């Protein structure tokens, strides 16, 4: 076996910001005062915030040290299932950082912002082509925001038809945010169980679909990493009773150039640019969750929309049936630029190749680990596969123990305890940007951990041992919340 990636090195301690610094220091070159002072009435002014005063060096060392306590895709493999931690190409950062983009005011007259408008217009076309839909909006700020937009579109559609429907079908293999997005829009989520193969049966949907149901929210490929094979027939059942099909497209990275959701009955779907289209996750955001729709939902898209008029681009508010606005301005434009440059760099063939290799990597892990860990559903998977801790129960070792121990081997753990349909789930998504050597080393690490579970379980109970901190007490944090210093 190769030498383990995980090792220990010199990491520096660093106090909280306000535990350092001295009054009178500054890390900022204050712009020159070229006008006279003009005092504001004292009853309107306050003391000013109690911030520490730090020098530029103080600030630089502080955040450099903090960054060294973090692990990112650039550090190593990050197989978080459902999160798609693929490599974020550096050129995309350069493109989004161009002064013409970063310095642009969102309310500039159209004539002064043609570059961004053209980029947005083209990206909408590309996303519609990749999904097989007719139109798109880039306004939603994240996947869950896209889900909300989708629910609002469905709501707007039914309202126009004079249908008052109160329910949305949400399968147990859907993303965790789906039921909350449904509820935010005033609908009641109706849960449906997946079958013994981990997918939805047409019968199960037929049984719950009725005239009071506005539609279904289906994650495809689902959170078990399986393609919903019956999606076309399910769409027929939903449409047959006047409902609409929403596809949570967070997992579109598995099927680019392979399946067009618009061709298999989907009416509306969102994409996560920070998953499928390689924009970095930034420690939790910003993301971007564009929504693509078929023709019949286009009138309801958020405003303003980018419109082409004789080779010039303008923003138009002239959509009286629009659901309105989801953000003050035009979405996460800084993120959108990165996704645009990713698609332009990849081209159609490489996008398809990326999906194929993502699926290859996941199936490779699945095959090589299925004798080692318990595999929840032994069938060909898409971009991710789900194991569990079933084989480790007798060793009194849990999914969490194995996840924490993986850190000592230099890997970020997979997603754990999700999806809920699998007890003690360990959900792995390697993505296409990991090489075979990297996967082999990860597989070897997991094999070693499973052996340790038998031979030296305390190693796992005490893990991680090589991080900045030992295992943290999350119960204490919730019982006695301390959210500010």
């Amino acid at each position, binding site marked *: 076996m190769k030498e383990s990636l995980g090792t220990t090195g010199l990491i520096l301690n*660093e106090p909280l*910001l306000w535990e350092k*610094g001295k009054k009178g*220091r500054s890390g900022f*070159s204050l712009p020159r005062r070229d*006008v006279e002072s003009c005092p504001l009435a004292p009853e*309107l002014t*306050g003391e000013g915030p*109690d911030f*520490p005063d*730090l020098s530029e060096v103080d*600030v*630089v060392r502080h*955040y*450099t040290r903090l*960054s*060294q306590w973090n692990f990112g*895709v650039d550090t190593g493999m990050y197989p978080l299932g459902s999160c798609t931690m693929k490599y974020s190409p550096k050129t995309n950062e350069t*493109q989004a950082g*161009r002064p013409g983009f970063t*310095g642009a005011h*969102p309310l500039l*007259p159209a*004539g*002064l*912002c043609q*570059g961004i408008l053209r980029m947005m217009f083209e990206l909408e076309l590309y996303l519609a*082509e*990749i999904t097989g839909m007719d139109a798109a909006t880039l306004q939603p*700020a994240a996947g869950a925001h896209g889900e909300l937009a989708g629910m609002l579109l469905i709501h707007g559609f039914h309202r126009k038809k004079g249908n008052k429907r109160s329910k949305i079908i949400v399968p147990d293999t859907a993303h965790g*945010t789906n039921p909350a997005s*449904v509820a935010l829009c*005033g609908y009641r989520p109706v849960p449906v169980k997946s079958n013994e193969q981990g997918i939805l049966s047409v019968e199960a949907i037929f049984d719950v679909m009725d005239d009071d149901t506005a539609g279904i929210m289906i994650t495809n490929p689902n959170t078990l990493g399986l393609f919903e094979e019956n999606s076309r027939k399910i769409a027929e059942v939903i449409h047959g009773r006047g409902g609409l099909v929403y596809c949570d497209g967070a997992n579109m990275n598995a099927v680019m150039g392979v*399946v067009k959701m618009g*061709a298999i009955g989907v009416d509306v779907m969102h994409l996560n640019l920070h998953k499928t289209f390689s924009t970095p*996750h*930034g*420690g*939790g*955001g*910003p993301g971007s969750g564009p929504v693509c729709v078929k023709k019949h939902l286009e009138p309801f898209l958020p405003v303003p929309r980018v419109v082409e008029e004789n080779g010039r681009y303008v923003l138009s508010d002239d959509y009286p049936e629009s659901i309105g*606005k989801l*953000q*003050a*301005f035009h979405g996460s434009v*800084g993120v959108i630029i990165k996704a645009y440059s990713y698609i332009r760099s990849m*081209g159609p063939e490489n996008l*398809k*190749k990326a999906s*194929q290799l993502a699926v*290859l990597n996941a*199936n*490779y892990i699945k095959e090589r680990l299925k004798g080692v860990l318990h595999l929840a559903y032994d069938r060909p998977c898409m971009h991710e596969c789900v194991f569990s801790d079933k084989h480790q129960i007798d060793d009194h070792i849990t999914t969490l123990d194995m996840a924490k121990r993986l850190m000592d081997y230099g890997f970020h753990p997979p997603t754990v305890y999700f999806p809920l349909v699998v007890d003690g789930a360990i959900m792995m998504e390697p993505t*296409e940007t990991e090489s075979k050597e990297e996967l082999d080393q990860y597989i070897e690490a997991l094999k070693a951990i499973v052996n340790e579970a038998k031979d030296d379980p305390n190693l796992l109970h005490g893990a*991680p041992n090589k*991080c900045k*901190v030992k295992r943290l007490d999350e119960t204490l*944090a919730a019982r006695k919340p301390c*959210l*500010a210093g």
Partner: protein
Amino acid sequence: MHYLPHTAEDIESMLQAVGVEHLDDLFSTVPEDCRLQEGLDLPEALTEWELDEHMAALSNEMAVSPEYRVFMGAGSYEHFIPASVSYLLNRSEFVTSYTPYQPEMSQGTLQAIYEYQTLVARLLGMEVATASHYDGATALAESLLMAVRITGQRKVAVSSLIHPLYRRVVKTYFEPTGYEVLELPYLNTGLTDLSGLDEMDGLAAVAVQSPNFFGCIEDLKAVGEKAHDKDALFVSSFTEALAYGLLINPGSSGADIVCGEGQSLGIPRSFGGPALGMLATGKKYMRKLPGRLVGQTKDLDGKRGFVLTLATREQHIRREKATSNICTNNSLCALAAAMYMASVGGSGIRELALLNHDKAEYLKAQLKKEGFTIPFDSPTFNEFVVEFPPGFEATYARLLKKNTVPGLSLAPYYPELANHYLLCVTETRSKEDMDALVREVRS
């Protein structure tokens, strides 16, 4: 393709391990009638060199500083960002990590967000702040929904001087819920008219923005008292976070929930996004907050550490009963704001805020001297409204050609305010810029 590491040999041996012959065979579970037969109709791949050329051309078609002088704020402000902030923010350990679900490997993000929450709480005069939201508008919508949850009332009163685009977002969020949004008109002083509140009952919240959309500083104490008289929560919104370097903060004026946009704190405008939604409240409403929260705890050895906490409010546990559907926070934007606040410091933010105020006052005074009307006489921070003579559109168009954007026309948002423009001056506009603007609008 240099992002895809697989050699033909790798693919061959991996396919063998999986037990299929071709890459296409991996998709055997996708029914034949679901599979795409033709290729995607997208432009062919560009090399990195070609991409640079293409993107530079797009970027060059944008009107930005220093070639353009933009006197427009209205929720998006041009402030100087120190190189240290941009440089630190690009560290890939911050950029390429995920939501810190595995805290032992994410202490950098977690401590930084804990510090962000603390600095925001101090800036706004509140006890608890969230780890951030999408933008100021969605933070306002979430705050009003939070007020509805806390009070059990179904109506909110919203000032007509809250940013018009924020109000449209609130309308979008509220539309399917059946909750009602009532609007409070404005007075000719440029402040919110609170007298209508006397007639309103069953309110969950009264929301105002300060400085408001006209740039005027609202009397937050009076709003708070009036809201509490009606047993409603006082929601205080803002678009210019820097103002609280100078102005009395909403917390000490009685606000129950404070929400707004933090773009001014070290985040480039980027055509409006990504932005930074800030949301803060008191400890008593902590468990009603939407979105992520970071809390302090201890590790097995008793050492200080940080984790995501109070997750029982959140969608992945409570599903449809969650306080919100939010899964993403704008973590990297929050980090930028924390770095910026740390760099500017307590002394610096006050100086900087004063400079913004004084520069705006200079331009206001010069325009007044030239005979232009300043229709609202309440004190302002770094934005104010000017009424130009009829026919100003032609001057506006002429100035655009001279690389100057002389503010935002208010008529599309307030039809009664024809020829009224909202102007903004930050520390990035020099006295020469302002003198040149005055000369141009005069001629």
